[in-house]
Structures are given as structure tokens and as C-alpha cells.
């Protein structure tokens, strides 16, 4: 049933929305309210410049620099700003650190709030009903669905992004990574690990995200 709905949306909705969005853009350009070149620049920014690589650099810095980590956990917005990542949907950041007995998971049960400056735009599953509904009542089951089985004695903390606050998970640094450079460490950090649905491992993930 789900697949059928999905296919239906793909076929029936886009042509209508394409026309509506095009009409809206034409109107706003005509009124002098937007510049098409500015729209191109915005799209390019979010497609190529803002994304989880930013968050990965924040995580790697925290792993190699205890003073930075302390600042990150005290005033995340400022510490992330030190690396140049600021702006829309990242004005009020909180970083939550994983540990041997604590695992953090981020969700937005109300819509799709997400820390854009460090992770880019959210993936579809993050905005989907199954994730949003279940993350808060069955986080362990949700993690299992992502292939992450946590021991029973690990506490799971779920952070619901409401209003202006955005969360980033600081994953645990993987064992055996002591000799890696900051840059090499950043390459290990995935988007999913910074949302909290995965751990960081030494092996490069197949689908890098």
C-alpha cells in the first residue's frame, strides 16, 4: 500500500506542482521580489556547499581537541560558528555526546526541523511519518531498523527538535582511530551518526552520507 501511494504521488503530483511553483516564481520575479540568479545561488549552496561534511568537521575537531569539545558541549552555536558554520536553522544549536552507556537520537515529531548549517537538508526518512512517530516511543526498535543493535544497559536519549532548537549528536570516536588525522577522522563521520541512527566505525561506509 505504501509503495502504491508513493508511485501515485510521483505520477500525479509533480506536474501540477511544477506548474504552480513556476507560476509563483514568475509572479515574484515580475514583482521584483526575487532574482532568479539568487535562487540558482541558493540551490547551488544547499546542493554543494552545505551538508554533513560540515558536521563531520565539527565532530572530528571535538575528538582531537578537548578544549573545543568542552566549548561545543557548553555553547554549541558559538563553537560550531568557530568553524564558519552559521545561519538559517542553526541559530540555536545543542550538541549531545554519546558515551559507552548513553546514546542520543534526534527527531522532529512536529515536522522536519534539522540543523541545516552542519547537516544540510534532511533526508526523506527523517521527515517521514514512520520515523517521526516511532522514534519517541520505540527508539530501540527504530535503531534496530537502521541496523544498530544497542546493549540493553545503554540508555537512549531522544531529543525532539521543537521551535528553534536544533540538535547534533557527537558520536563516540571509534576504537583504533588514535593515529588518524583530524581530516581522516572527519571522513569516517556519517550524517546518520550525527542524527544518532548509526555509530561511527573505522570502515568507510558504503553509502557515504
Amino acid at each position: 500500500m505504501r509503495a502504491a501511494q508513493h508511485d501515485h504521488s510521483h505520477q500525479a503530483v509533480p506536474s501540477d506542482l511544477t506548474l504552480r511553483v513556476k507560476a509563483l516564481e514568475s509572479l515574484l520575479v515580475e514583482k521584483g521580489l526575487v532574482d532568479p540568479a539568487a535562487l540558482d545561488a541558493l540551490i547551488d549552496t544547499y546542493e554543494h556547499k552545505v551538508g554533513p561534511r560540515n558536521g563531520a568537521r565539527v565532530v572530528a575537531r571535538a575528538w582531537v581537541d578537548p578544549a573545543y569539545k568542552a566549548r561545543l558541549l557548553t555553547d554549541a552555536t558559538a563553537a560550531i560558528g568557530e568553524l564558519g558554520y552559521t545561519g538559517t536553522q542553526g541559530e540555536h544549536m545543542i550538541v549531545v555526546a554519546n558515551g559507552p552507556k548513553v546514546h542520543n537520537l534526534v527527531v522532529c515529531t512536529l515536522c522536519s526541523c534539522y540543523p541545516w548549517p552542519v547537516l544540510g537538508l534532511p533526508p526523506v526518512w527523517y521527515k517521514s511519518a514512520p520515523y517521526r512517530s516511532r522514534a519517541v516511543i520505540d527508539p530501540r526498535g527504530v535503531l534496530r531498523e537502521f541496523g544498530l543493535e544497542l546493549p540493553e544497559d545503554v540508555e537512549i536519549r531522544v531529543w525532539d527538535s521543537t521551535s528553534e532548537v536544533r540538535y547534533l549528536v557527537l558520536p563516540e570516536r571509534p576504537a583504533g582511530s588514535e593515529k588518524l588525522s583530524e581530516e581522516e577522522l572527519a571522513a569516517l563521520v556519517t550524517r546518520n551518526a550525527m542524527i544518532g541512527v548509526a555509530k561511527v566505525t573505522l570502515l568507510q561506509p558504503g553509502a557515504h552520507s
Partner: protein
Amino acid sequence: MNGVHDMGGMHGMGPIRTGDDEPVFHERWEARAFALALAMAAWRKWTLDGSRHQRELITSAESADELLREMGYRAG
């Protein structure tokens, strides 16, 4: 409020499609609508609460997939 705009704890939504490999924008209109909403926000003609209100005008009866597709267009 309990519906598509406040989904925490709701049952029966099925499995999560955990697929990892997807483009930032899935269709051209998504990118244009996103950029339009962002560019227009600079004129400060609506507030965060106004944006949220528009989003909540989308009824629960609309499917979750349609909701996601519409969000960018209606509320940024």
C-alpha cells in the same frame, strides 16, 4: 493537537525507508520552491509562527507523502 503535525507516539505508520543514497532535491520544483521560500523570507512578510500556521492548514487527511511534497511549497 494530534495528527500529521504532531506525530510523536502515533502507531501504524509502517517501516522506515532507511535508504541512504538520495539527492538533496528530488525534483526540480522542490529546489525552486525551497529557494523561493528562503529568498522570500528575507522580506520578513511572515514569521516563524505564521509559517507554522500555514503548515498546519494542511489537513491530516492528506497523505504523509503528499504532505512532504507540499511542505516546501506552502510553508518553506
